[in-house]
């Protein structure tokens, strides 16, 4: 294989996708009743629900009676010291967020809709409390704006989880809902995070704790230490990949046997991505293309071995921080270690993908070598009481009686598309049950299909290369990749579809639906498509 050289430094770690991207300046008085500024054409009201969560309401003068309740995504519940990549300098914030971004909010207000959102009382994994907060917030909004006739719920990431739960549990309050780039239940998510961290620790730096953090300040220090170590590993691998993509060196912190180090470190990172269920297409790496001008055999090896390794690196880099932060947060809530892989068969985990990514894994022998390391390494054991407590947190049943729209990027590295697929599968089973019941009762009319599932597929080839042949990671993340990477057109298409469903009690369908999503761009309605399932569902 050619020894590819990249002269230009790659920047693989994207910005803090999960941190609040829009913080609305609203009156922050912790008042039981909204305090409004009375401005025209849009008045903004602030206040707090009984749990102390601040909220923001924005209502146009021509309010048409429909309000969009937005639930924001995951925000860390601990401050993160400056200097740590991605999240460094973050301080806990519960500033309310009534929409995905300012442009979308302005567009909705311009159409006569109101928007509302809470900052939630607690950050981190807060679904249980956030659901209650939102229910109270809807009541407060309706009381303040008596013209309200319809409430639409939407949200992203963890906010997507909250939105789905609101739709399932409170169909009386909401007329339509859209969980976007949604998280599914906490156990599969924490398992994905745990597998990724354990994989990085096992292959590249055994001093990473990866979980089982101590209580209090000591645990905080351990988690911050892990963040630094994880990003050090990522940075070291990045440098090694750039220096010698064909056979990048292993980090000095790695303690795998020397014989295993004969396998390129890039293959170990691909193994980490596959065993955790992290997608193999990333913001800048399509796993299909090669720089122009390479000899044919080198181009093929770049397409099937090197480009996928960079994709794994970029995705793991963007998922790793959340893995540390979410693990620390959930352990705090559960009271002990939550990740357990004592019985995990990683060979079975990757059985479906090992042929697909055979070259990236350095063939059968490379795969077998890497699996032998996983098999021989000490496993993580959860605290039984903590694991049990985690299971008491709210989960999705998938059963919705109001129109809901699911939409996600197929290559989202944080809330993998399998999250959306799991909720789609649950609803499909529920729908089949309902239809069976109708038939048993000698009925003939199919129940209404309340779930519309949309996908954002990455393009076939999107990696950009510089004139020198190096991948160019300075360009924006490709569509269908990265976490909650949606365009304003897509947000507005979802908003319009929600408005239609809210007004009509059913989804837009047929030609008008297809036209709507086609015009938005990169939205696919395909009932035959199933996203790769998550690696573990807790069942």
């Amino acid at each position, binding site marked *: 294989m050619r020894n590819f050289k990249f002269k230009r430094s790659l920047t693989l770690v994207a910005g803090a996708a999960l941190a609040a991207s829009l913080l609305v300046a609203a009156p922050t008085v912790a008042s039981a009743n909204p305090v409004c500024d009375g401005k025209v054409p849009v008045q903004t009201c602030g206040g707090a629900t009984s749990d102390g969560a601040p909220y923001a309401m924005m209502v146009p003068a021509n309010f048409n009676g429909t309000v969009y309740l937005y639930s924001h995504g995951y925000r860390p519940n601990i401050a993160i010291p400056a200097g740590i990549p991605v999240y460094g300098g973050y301080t806990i914030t519960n500033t309310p967020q009534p929409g995905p971004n300012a442009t979308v909010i302005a567009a909705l207000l311009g159409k006569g809709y109101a928007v509302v959102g809470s900052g939630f009382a607690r950050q981190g994994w807060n679904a249980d409390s956030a659901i209650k907060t939102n229910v109270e917030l809807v009541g407060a909004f309706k009381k303040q704006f008596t013209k309200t006739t319809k409430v639409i719920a939407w949200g992203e990431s963890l906010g997507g989880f909250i939105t789905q739960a609101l739709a399932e549990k409170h169909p009386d309050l909401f007329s339509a809902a859209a969980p976007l780039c949604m998280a599914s239940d906490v156990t599969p998510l924490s398992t994905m995070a745990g597998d990724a961290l354990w994989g990085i620790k096992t292959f590249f730096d055994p001093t990473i704790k990866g979980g089982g953090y101590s209580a209090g300040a000591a645990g905080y220090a351990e988690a911050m230490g892990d963040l630094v170590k994880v990003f050090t590993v990522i940075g070291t691998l990045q440098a090694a990949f750039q220096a010698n993509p064909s056979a990048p060196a292993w980090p000095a912190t790695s303690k795998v046997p020397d014989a295993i180090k004969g396998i390129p470190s890039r293959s170990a990172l691909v193994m980490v991505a596959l065993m955790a269920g992290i997608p193999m297409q990333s913001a800048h790496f399509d796993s299909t293309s090669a720089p122009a001008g390479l000899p044919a055999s080198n181009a093929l090896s770049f*397409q099937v071995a090197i480009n996928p390794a960079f994709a794994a690196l970029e995705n793991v880099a963007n998922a790793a921080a959340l893995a540390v932060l979410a693990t620390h947060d959930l352990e705090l809530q559960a009271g002990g270690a939550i990740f357990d892989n004592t019985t995990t068969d990683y060979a079975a985990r990757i059985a479906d993908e090992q042929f697909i990514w*055979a070259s990236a894994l350095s063939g059968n*022998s490379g795969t077998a070598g890497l699996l032998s390391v996983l098999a021989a390494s000490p496993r993580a054991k959860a605290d039984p009481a903590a694991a049990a407590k985690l299971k008491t947190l709210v989960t999705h049943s998938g059963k919705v009686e109001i129109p809901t729209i699911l939409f996600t990027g197929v290559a989202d590295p944080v809330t993998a598309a399998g999250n959306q697929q799991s909720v789609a599968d649950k609803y499909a089973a529920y729908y089949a049950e309902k239809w069976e019941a109708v038939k048993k009762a000698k009925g003939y009319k199919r129940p209404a299909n309340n779930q519309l599932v949309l996908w954002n597929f990455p393009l076939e080839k999107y990696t950009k290369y510089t004139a020198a042949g190096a991948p160019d990671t300075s360009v924006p993340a490709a569509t269908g990749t990265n976490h909650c990477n949606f365009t304003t057109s897509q947000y507005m298409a979802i908003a319009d579809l929600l408005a239609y469903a809210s007004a009509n009690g059913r989804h837009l369908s047929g030609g008008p639906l297809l036209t709507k999503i086609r015009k938005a761009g990169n939205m696919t309605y395909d009932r035959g498509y199933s996203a790769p399932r998550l690696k573990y569902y807790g069942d």
Partner: protein
Amino acid sequence: MVLAVGSLVATSLPAHAETGVTGTEIKLGITLPLTGAASPGYNKIGNAMNAYFKYVNDNGGVYGRKVTLIQKNDEYSPQLSIAKTNELILKDKVFALVGPLGTANFTSVHKSVGIAKRGIPSLFLNTGFSGFANKKSYPTSFMVLPSYAMEAKIISQFLKENHAGKKLGIVYQNDEFGIDGMGAFKAAGIKFDVSVPYTSGTQSAATAQTWVSQLAAGGAQVVVFFGVTSATAPLLAVSAAAKYSPQWILGSVGADPLTLRALGVPLAVLNGAQTPAGNPSPNDTSDEYVKQFQEINTKYNAGTAFDDYVLQGMNIGLMTVQGLRAAGPNPTRKKLISAMETKGSSFASVAYSPLGFSATSNVGHTGYYMAVMDANGDRKPFGGKVKLYTTDSGSGPVVVSTFKRPAMPAKGLPSNS
């Protein structure tokens, strides 16, 4: 009034309500490498299929419908195969996939595109991975080639019969080829003295130097090659340059002489190389299939040299047309799958071995004969006469078969139903 409305609706419906089928056309799709390192030889298959379909279309089509084939270039990249197959299914709306190529490619397509869930027939997969014979996992897919496990078992038998006591070497592709092939060699009791795995995508003259060094250092007298043509070529070329000349046994996938010669392999190196073969030589004009396909190639695929890949493409076309006919005048995907299961084993095919299709099996051809290449790069049966071995992918024995393949349909135009 009700009747009148009903009539109106009926007349406005398309002539045939199945995806990819109209009153005048049946649309099929294939993914394969048309460019790139893996493309030599494979890039001829789609055009050869098309040539055969054009011939059929010029002779009335299939129940009056013309057959069209849309080729998509996946560059042998599994991830690209997914995107291209999605295009075929969602945009081009093909009726069925025919001859999709590559194990990793079809594995990824099957998983990510949801072939089984959608009920899309995938006929005559151009790969020998025995995993695809799992009818439960691949209920709508049908193989055509004997599996790599069958091939390894037959080569094992041949090694025992003809090369006992020699030092054995093997170069193999370190993926599903390896699992299928090496597992079967081991089960057959074949122990290689020198074993050289290579990772798909790494084949080049430089890497071939290391393979040859290992083989020569280990003193391998008989070397089995189990990989693709783009790896066979540098292996043989480098060996020739190094004056290392073991008895080569080239696996069927990477043994097309014409392609190897086009990739720079000297004719002298090919002379005497042994290989398992399922089909007659593409130069054997005494064979009724070869003769007919050559005529079609001359007229409908002008300028393309007739080799194993063209022969294979034409044959997949022939089998596809039989499948479409067996599905009846109003074909649906379900009918096509059912026809493959109930009638597929009796289809005419250029290959000498029986087809294994049934309600419980999606196995294609089940055997090989051993051949040897001559000074002209042509392939002749080893020992002067076709000795057909058949077997399965499991622990069944390798047996010499007396199976007689069905005759070529008159003028190469199937009339089955």
